[in-house]
């Protein structure tokens, strides 16, 4: 893995870099590229940009590559990198900020199933106030046209009574819907 040259800065977008730093408040400026995050990351092997490189590219303003990377979606949010970073950079906040920006700017992702998962997961909460695992999983499988890959597990889990069949009962669904409405717009 190599460091990306400062010369790349000529093609970068400084406004993007500034925005990520301001929104995330993650201390990204402190990153000295020690690669502890990448060495600690359980998913780095599957990412197109290792985490330390992604951070460097944010710093250099390489917006398109960063927002379209698989890295931001494959991050399992385990926070091992955050716990071990000697410079106390809140790498998870950077990842979350980038995901939020990629969704707002409708950047097409190479990992399209994961944004669909998040969307489906949140929709279930918006409707029921709580997660209804069974309908969420079925809807996700339909939306990703991936009906059969987990069918054997699904049936086993159903037979074991692992899935609640009926949707959860909650009184305050209107209050939860109101939270979704109020937070729809990006923060001022």
């Amino acid at each position: 893995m190599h460091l990306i040259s400062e010369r790349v800065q000529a093609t970068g977008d400084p406004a993007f870099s500034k925005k990520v730093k301001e929104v995330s408040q993650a201390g990204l400026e402190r990153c000295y590229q020690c690669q502890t995050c990448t060495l600690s990351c359980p998913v780095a092997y599957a990412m197109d940009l290792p985490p330390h490189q992604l951070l460097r590219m944010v710093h250099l303003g390489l917006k398109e590559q960063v927002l379209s990377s698989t890295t931001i979606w494959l991050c399992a949010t385990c926070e091992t990198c955050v716990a071990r970073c000697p410079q106390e950079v809140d790498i998870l906040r950077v990842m979350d900020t980038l995901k939020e920006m990629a969704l707002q700017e409708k950047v097409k992702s190479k990992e399209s199933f994961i944004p669909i998962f998040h969307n489906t997961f949140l929709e279930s909460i918006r409707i029921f106030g709580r997660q209804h695992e069974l309908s969420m999983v079925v809807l996700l499988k339909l939306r990703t046209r991936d009906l059969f890959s987990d069918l054997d597990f699904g049936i086993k889990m159903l037979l074991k009574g692992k899935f609640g069949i009926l949707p959860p009962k909650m009184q305050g669904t209107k209050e939860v819907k109101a939270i979704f409405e109020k937070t729809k717009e990006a923060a001022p």
Partner: protein
Amino acid sequence: MKYAYYPGCSMESGTAKEYDQSVKAVCQTLGLELEEIPDWNCCGASSGHCTNFRLGHALAARNLALAERMDMDIALGCPACYQRLKGTRHEFNENAQLREELPDLICMPYQATHDVRHLLDIIYSDFDIEEIRAKVTRPLTGLKLACYYGCFIVRPPKVVQFDDLENPQSMDILMGALGAEPLDWSAKVDCCGGSLSLTKRDIVAKLVSDIADAARGVGAEAIVTACPLCMANLDTRQKPNGDKALPILYFTELMGIAFGAADGKGWLQKHLVSPVALLASRGII
């Protein structure tokens, strides 16, 4: 002792019902009273915070505010919910803008007067280990266990502030008090892949198989967890290379069984990799 109980979605009616049942049985034996937070909502983990900062915090905050009305600390068993609720409480204290916005977003007052605690912390910290040992009627003698803490009980340390970051001990000490033999191993705080389970099966299969291999490598006969998501991933996605898949148990299932709970066998029926033969072979059930 009385806590405001937040079951969370998977423990209330879903894939981790047996965790909820065993939590309640153990708390009853220990004299810990759990009063469910009325009309709680999903904490949003992990899709809320990673796609919309304010939504993630507002979903968690509604539960914090409801518990504050009960004038009690929150107790919960799901580490993902724990990290969300505790994380929002932390952010509320640190972030002035969010502090101002949150009550309006949830239409409720909130002042962060009460704490959020995982049941592993409560059971480990609020009781003398001898008290736990004294309740054991069916010791887990000789059972070799790999205690698996995963991510959100120990991370991020600034927020959760419980146990050692890299080599936590609380679950090991509790299992030792039940008569079991907790083992030193290297994957205690490794990640199981979390919610990638539904979209990146291959990644999760690799991560959980690595964890199970590490446990097997030190001679563990089962893995103990305190997390519904770790349970779901390890119980369904292990790909043992010529070996048998390792059974996974909630720490409260083992505590309940050791305390002589009558419904212990019922919890174990829910697991895909059955721990029944192992526990029966030691005369534990």
